């Protein structure tokens, strides 16, 4: 093993900035800011944003230099874009912190958020089963803490615990799957695993390993039937944590598993583009995807809780994203990345609006949004952009993301096989989805405000974050090629 430490450090500068930033936030808080409660949030926020911006700049300019440190990491355009994307999403989520004023330890929250982001960036670049698992666990453990961070709220604690239990079990499955893969191939490097498997051909043991890996994937992406944690966690977690779980975590997970499935397990993909279906991971992913689309969209219909509604919406989007994963090997990862990144932006925005509203009082039921256009036209306008993008209304990014992914799936085999049928099912369910999305907008834009509702004051950082997210959704919807041409 030829260790190139200089190259490794060069490649991992973003992670270094993030970790150093997390430590600085903790130290400054302990020594100085702790005694100034009025500024504690702002100091943590400022330091956290600075370190995120430095890391983001380093990630965006790092360049696709290929395999690093004996193939531990792979820096290709996808990992550059993903690292930049997750850092941007984390920064937007962090900007919601001042409105979550009930969190008593902002510095710890910021530091853990930065650790989680470190996990995401490593997931985006990992090319080794061990690194991937470590990165995943770093991110997951941080997120468990963030989900239960609101100590004053029993729901937050419940969310943290359920997330942890579910995540722990999924991680066990994943680790078992990884160990089987290592046993089958004798290597941890994804590209070498791919070469080995191509020589061996599919075996029953490989199938078991695949399904175990996909359990971990399904958990991370909140796809049915491994989605059960999502509604409870989205409901209970503090808004910035929920935003992070729904956006950056999902993007990083999708990229990690896409890398795992295509370069690593590409020879065991099977086919679902035409009948008869051949065995591999693609039919399993297709099953998960179809179940997610159905359960997510139908489950959302009856929700009266806006956070649970967003969770079911996330499940249905996971179904569409998994379709993109199936197509990514053939048509490139561009549509998948575009969809996942813009979906992350919209959920950060949606949770941002909820978080901003929560500074004035708890927001759970749809009716808590009533009369938002009177209480805060800015929030109502941003919410309209986010929700319409989730629903896939042109010219917003959500429409083009769905369009690009579905088009790439149809390129596989048209309507001749299960993949094409799934696309038709997804498009039909989009019409169902429009109903519950418009329920949100009906409350926000049409219904009259409650009698005791006061105008909402939104912090500056959250305002800027929401405007950036909404502006990006509109801009990327108008110029999707800005993202698609990266790959």
């Amino acid at each position, binding site marked *: 093993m030829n260790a190139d430490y200089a190259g490794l450090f060069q490649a991992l500068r973003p992670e270094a900035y993030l970790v150093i930033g997390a430590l600085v936030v903790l130290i400054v808080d302990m020594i100085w800011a702790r005694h100034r409660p009025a500024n504690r949030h702002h100091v943590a926020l400022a330091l956290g944003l600075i370190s995120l911006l430095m890391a983001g700049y380093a990630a965006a300019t790092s360049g696709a230099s290929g395999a690093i440190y004996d193939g531990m990491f792979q820096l290709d355009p996808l990992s550059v874009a993903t690292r930049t994307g997750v850092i941007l999403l984390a920064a937007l989520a962090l900007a919601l912190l001042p409105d979550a004023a009930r969190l008593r330890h902002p510095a710890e929250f910021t530091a853990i958020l930065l650790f989680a982001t470190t996990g995401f960036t490593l997931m985006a670049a990992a090319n080794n089963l061990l690194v991937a698992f470590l990165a995943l666990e770093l991110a997951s453990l941080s997120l468990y803490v963030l989900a239960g961070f609101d100590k004053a709220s029993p729901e937050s604690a419940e969310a943290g615990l359920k997330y942890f239990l579910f995540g722990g079990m999924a991680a066990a499955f994943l680790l078992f799957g990884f160990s089987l893969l290592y046993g089958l191939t004798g290597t941890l490097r994804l590209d070498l695993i791919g070469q080995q498997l191509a020589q061996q051909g*599919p075996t029953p043991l490989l199938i078991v390993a*695949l399904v*175990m890996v996909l359990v971990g994937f399904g958990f991370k992406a909140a796809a049915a*039937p491994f989605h059960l944690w999502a509604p409870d966690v989205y409901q209970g977690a503090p808004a910035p944590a929920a935003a992070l779980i729904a956006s950056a975590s999902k993007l990083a997970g999708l990229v990690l598993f896409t890398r795992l499935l295509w370069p690593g397990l590409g020879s065991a993909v099977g086919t679902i583009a035409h009948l008869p279906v051949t065995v591999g991971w693609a039919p399993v992913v297709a099953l998960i995807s179809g179940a997610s689309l159905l359960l997510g969209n139908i489950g959302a219909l009856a929700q009266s809780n806006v956070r649970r509604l967003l969770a079911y919406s996330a499940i249905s989007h996971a179904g569409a994203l998994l379709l993109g994963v199936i197509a990514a090997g053939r048509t490139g990862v561009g549509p998948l990345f575009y969809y996942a990144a813009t979906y992350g932006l919209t959920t950060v925005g949606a949770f941002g609006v909820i978080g901003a509203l929560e500074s004035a009082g708890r927001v759970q039921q749809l009716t808590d949004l009533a009369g938002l256009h009177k209480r805060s036209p800015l929030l109502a306008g941003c919410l309209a952009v986010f929700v319409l993008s989730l629903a896939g209304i042109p010219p917003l990014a959500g429409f083009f993301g769905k369009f690009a992914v579905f088009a790439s799936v149809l390129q596989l085999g048209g309507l001749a096989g299960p993949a094409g049928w799934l696309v038709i099912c997804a498009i039909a369910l989009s019409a169902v989805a429009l109903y519950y999305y418009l329920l949100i907008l009906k409350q926000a834009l049409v219904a009259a405000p409650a009698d005791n509702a006061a105008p909402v004051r939104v912090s500056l950082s959250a305002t800027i974050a929401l405007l950036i997210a909404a502006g990006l959704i509109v801009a990327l919807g108008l110029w999707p090629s800005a993202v698609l041409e990266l790959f």
Partner: protein
Amino acid sequence: MFRVFLMSLSVQNLWLIPALPLAAAAIGALTPRTGRALAAGAAITAMAGAFILSCLALVGALAEPAAHQVFNFAWFDLGHGALRLGLLLDPLTAFMGVMVTFVSLLIFIFSTGYMKDDANYKQFFCFLSLFASAMLGLLVANSLLLLFVCWELVGLASYLLIGFWFHKPAAAAAAKKAFITTRIGDLGFLLGILWLQDTQGTLLFYDGGHGILESAALANLAHLLPCGLAASTAIGLLIFCGAIGKSGQFPLHVWLPDAMEGPTPVSALIHAATMVAAGVFLMARVYPLMAADQGLANVPVHALTVVACIGAITALMGALIAVAQNDIKRILAFSTVSQLGYMMLAIGVGSWTAAIFHLLTHAFFKALLFLGAGSVIHAAHHEQDIRRLGGLRPKMKVTFATFAIGMMALAGVPFLFSGFWSKEAILHAAHEWNVSSLPLYAGLAAVVLTALYMTRLVAEVFFGAARTAEADHAHENSPAMTMPLVLLALCAVLLGFLGTPAFPWLQARLLGDSEVHGHSLLEGSGLMRVSIVLVALGLGAGWALYGRRPRARAESPDPLAARAPRLIAALASRLGFDELYAATVGRLSSGFATFCAFLEIYVWDGAVRFLAGLGELSGLVSRENDEQGFNAGFNSASESLRKTSTAYSKAQSGDAHGYLRTLALGFVLLLIIVILGGAR
């Protein structure tokens, strides 16, 4: 160093001249009602800019007077061909442009004083700028189509401005009358344009040998139609219809006197100096087309002969009616009709340069007279009846002096005043016309009448004693109103020397000659002597009748009416043209309108109601269908979806053990499916 000041405007940039007032009109339209200073300032600034540009264009045009500088461009593609428009710069365009911009500028300035108290002040300047833009566009057009577009736009601006005080029923009616009457002429004009486009395939005036005014195209029109006329004669006469309407020629002159219901600056600018002269300009512009049939011997009539006759009739008739009018603006309006008749007469007898010369001088002195009248009206609290004025000479010295200059220019007082020279040029051309002498006699008779009615006007308004309280309280107006009068008076004197027979510079430049060939004034001066005598006769008769013993009271009888009561009564009622039209064309069209209304109410409306009923019925049926069948099915489907969802939500109990069991179950299930699938 000196060259910098001699720069000129090239034809490519000619569009700037109409664009400036158009921008001012846009500013005027967009400013709120309170933005009075902004709208007026923009209009005046833009006009001053357009004036400077026009002067530069004149420099450019005079550098090569014989050339028709053109700049043609494709407007849009139409099938295989392109519809092309163009700009044209020649001395005719340039002289007209300088005149229009200069007179407009002075009248804009005058208007700031005259319209000071009007609530719609900014709108007035917006409309004025729109008019100026359209008028200038008309002048620079190198395409009959572009000219027609601008022609209609000046008609629109004229409509808007005549009806500016639309709350007065008379003004609204006059605006409508002007618009509809000129439309009758424009119908002929449009037919002529379509005919030309059909036969020539282009409407560009000059296009490097292919334009409709160039000899190759004119030769196409020499063939005879079944009715015996040459094609060019028929097209020329159709185009002349437009000029008849716009320039108030007999028999469509009836709108012009009524147009005096508009504000006086509008009367001065549009209905005396510029727009009404557009018909004359059009005839001068298409003169090669009008004269194309001159060489044909076997045709019943030449186009120009018709033009000359119409012009002569109009000149005489306008002057006759003017003698018997009592409203100061109506007198001037009929005098405008008469003078436009002179110009048409000049074109008809073959001297379009004389017509343009008279157009230019007339624009200045008639604008002067109208603004003078406006000054009188403004001072006398909107009293317009000359019998109820009087004695204004000592009270309004500047107005009187300038008005007198304008009056003498119009009457054609010899040598010093521009009107004399331009009218002499027309009479001279009429004298040399070898088809008939009648136009000459009509013109000479009109000379006497013009001197007579103008003397009457001045004597009644300015001399004698004030006959009403309004006239008694009159006083001189502000410099914004008198300064344009003085400038126009200067022009009314000086402009005549551009075209005297001894040095006909203007005519030579218009014809494209760089040499000026004059001759002694005494050479062939018999006609001039006759007309001088006739002017003296008219002035003397007017003074004898109205000046020597001024009217004592407003109600005193008119001395001329006392001598020939029936003639004057007939003239005062404008020879009954309005009544004639009301009884014939008006009644016919109102009868047709009644018929159409009958059809509309009972026939078409019934059919529409029937169809609407059918539509309603089918709508009813399909709504029932929709609600009972389709919609109910959709509702039940939606309801069952929601029920599924509720049931599913209940299944999600929140029990963590259940979650983990589901996870494990899901894993096993997937494994079984895949392995079974693999075994198959």
